[in-house]
């Protein structure tokens, strides 16, 4: 028994035992298992390998209460301008459900007892809580959230925006455990934009489970724009079937400390998987992007380009593991992690890991950490462009190169605008005093 172990210090308000008691058998069993697992593993401590670069002392010091009330948030204008339906989750519960296009079904998880078969088939089965305490905690408290189904062959035109917002506290932090399930059935294709936001001090512990069936496609762009006082620990778990496509992207700009974890099981042949992203950190922000790609079957491709820009004393963490199982011949995996440090006090930890058990695969990975290139900066200045502006142009180009990987044009443009806006605030201003 290690001294790191904490027992449910983050659970406040609804007692998971009580929750489990009132639920139908299948859900009560799931919650009980999650509670037991959480009790056993506790929160990660300094010796937990998976969390060695992301310390949780600041989180553990909080005694949060359940999130209530209305968060003071607004979607970034570029995202709000996307002309798709908007689903809203506030404090972990579905709060707004607009009319959905044909072929798209949305149900609230508030009463998981009434969950249809497609929810029961997947809920809790994709995001494993065996080794992940925050996922265990989320599952233990599973009561709110939303499930989205793209029916067989359905192709809603406009991106669906899923806004996940939380009202934080002033002195006392709040906590919420939003739960999202997305099921894309055979041959379906959709685009989902998830936006995490909130106001004040809080811990957001969302879990998103995604199942993409045979021949189906999901474009999924996540914007993590939580309050600067917030802690965000999220899990996105994916199960992909044969010939499916997942085009994933994360843009992380918010939180005091954030971990965005994505685990994908490529459980079929000819899967095309992408998990690209950009994290932008200023002041004392801490961004952690942790991904796991499990190539289980042959002919899969995975593409992962994660770029970070850090100013002030911001810190970036990238942990990317690619597992190629013996059966996954002809796997084509690309992983690149790059970070741009704009201040001497910014720092990055990069831990790429390739574990390959098949012999006929093509996998590459790399990492670069650096400052802006002097020769590039000089070239711009030698044409008359002032230093601050030159830096801003170069950083913008660096970031937009990654954002250009978002497949769906309107989503790409919206994310480009959000990133530009951040850079205008944090790079153009700071850079005036370049030397």
């Amino acid at each position, binding site marked *: 028994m290690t001294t790191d172990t904490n027992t449910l210090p983050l659970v406040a308000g609804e007692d998971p035992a009580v929750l489990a008691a009132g639920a139908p058998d299948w859900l009560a069993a799931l919650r009980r298992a999650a509670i037991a697992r959480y009790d056993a593993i506790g929160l990660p401590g300094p010796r937990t390998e998976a969390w060695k670069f992301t310390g949780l002392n600041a989180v553990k010091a909080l005694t949060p209460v359940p999130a209530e009330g209305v968060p003071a948030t607004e979607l970034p204008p570029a995202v709000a301008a996307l002309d798709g339906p908007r689903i809203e989750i506030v404090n972990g519960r579905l709060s707004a459900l607009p009319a959905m296009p044909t072929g798209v079904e949305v149900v609230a998880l508030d009463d998981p007892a009434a969950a249809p078969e497609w929810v029961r088939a997947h809920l809790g089965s994709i995001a494993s809580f065996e080794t992940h305490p925050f996922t265990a905690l989320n599952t233990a408290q599973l009561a709110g959230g939303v499930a989205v189904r793209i029916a067989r062959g359905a192709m809603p035109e406009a991106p669906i925006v899923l806004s996940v917002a939380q009202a934080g506290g002033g002195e006392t932090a709040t906590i919420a455990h939003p739960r999202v399930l997305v099921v894309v059935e055979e041959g379906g294709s959709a685009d989902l934009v998830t936006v995490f936001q909130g106001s004040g001090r809080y811990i957001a512990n969302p879990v998103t489970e995604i199942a993409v069936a045979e021949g189906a496609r999901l474009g999924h762009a996540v914007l993590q724009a939580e309050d600067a006082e917030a802690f965000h620990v999220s899990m996105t778990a994916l199960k992909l079937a044969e010939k499916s496509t997942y085009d994933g992207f994360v843009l992380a700009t918010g939180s005091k400390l954030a971990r965005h974890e994505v685990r994908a099981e490529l459980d079929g042949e000819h899967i095309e998987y992408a998990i690209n992203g950009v994290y932008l950190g200023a002041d004392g922000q801490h961004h952690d992007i942790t991904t796991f790609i499990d190539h289980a079957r042959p002919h899969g491709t995975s593409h992962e380009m994660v770029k970070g820009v850090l100013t002030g004393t911001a810190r970036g963490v990238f942990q990317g593991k690619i597992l190629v199982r013996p059966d996954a011949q002809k796997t084509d995996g690309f992983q690149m992690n790059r970070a741009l440090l704009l201040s001497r006090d910014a720092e990055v930890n990069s831990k790429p890991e390739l574990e390959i058990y098949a012999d006929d695969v093509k996998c590459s990975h790399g990492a670069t950490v650096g400052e802006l290139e002097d020769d590039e900066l000089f070239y711009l*200045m*030698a044409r008359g462009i002032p230093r601050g502006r030159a830096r801003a*142009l170069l950083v913008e180009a660096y970031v937009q190169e990654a954002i250009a990987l978002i497949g769906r044009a309107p989503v790409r443009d919206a994310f480009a605008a959000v990133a530009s806006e951040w850079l205008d605030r944090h790079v153009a201003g700071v850079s005036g005093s370049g030397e």
Partner: protein
Amino acid sequence: MALLEIEGLHVEVEGKEILKGIDLVIEPGEVHAIMGPNGSGKSTLSYVLSGREGYEVTAGSIRFDGHDLLEMEADERAVAGIFLAFQYPVELPGVSGMTFLKEAVNARRKAAGEGDIDAMAFLKLVRAKAKGLGITDEMLKRAVNVGFSGGEKKRNEILHMAVLEPKLCVLDETDSGLDIDALKVVSDGVNALRDPARSMLVITHYQRLLNHIEPDKVHVLARGRIRRTGGKELALELEQKGYADFVEAA
């Protein structure tokens, strides 16, 4: 008044003295050529003129059009009218050529107290200049120098120069890596910019460029100093005899 006046210039790079007392005066409208063996400090001189960091001036002065050049940042020098056509133009992934040029034009306008250039007027201006240099719209849309051939990069430098209309053009080995056709295009582009109010400093290793861009004066830079100055016939002499005399003389 001379446009450029370099006096007793000594420059160190990483603690090593590269320029060891350069004196050079260029009047408005004059074209000067600097020739010299590899490693003699030609590019160093071009970088010191344009304000690159890492070049420490330990003695001497540079006056340019009434400014104390050494007190100015690279961007201020560019706005004041100094232009360097790079020996190795830099690739800027993700920065479109048009954005780059527009930023450069607007920086000058801002310094002159003018507003940003009108988008249509800018496009027209660039297209007109690009045409003569054989630069296509497609090239203009691409990221600066990314995927350009050596010749395309050099033509792109001349395009920048034509659009920005500097007072002093410093051309660092603009002829290197060009075939004879490209050399002609680039030289025509440079000659089109010759003007009684505009001076040029043409750095080259070979005499051939000077057949196309005729200099008023030719200087030989070797071992950190100007060892000889003459008319354009000096270039021909160097072409025949090489730099052996200057390299060996210790």
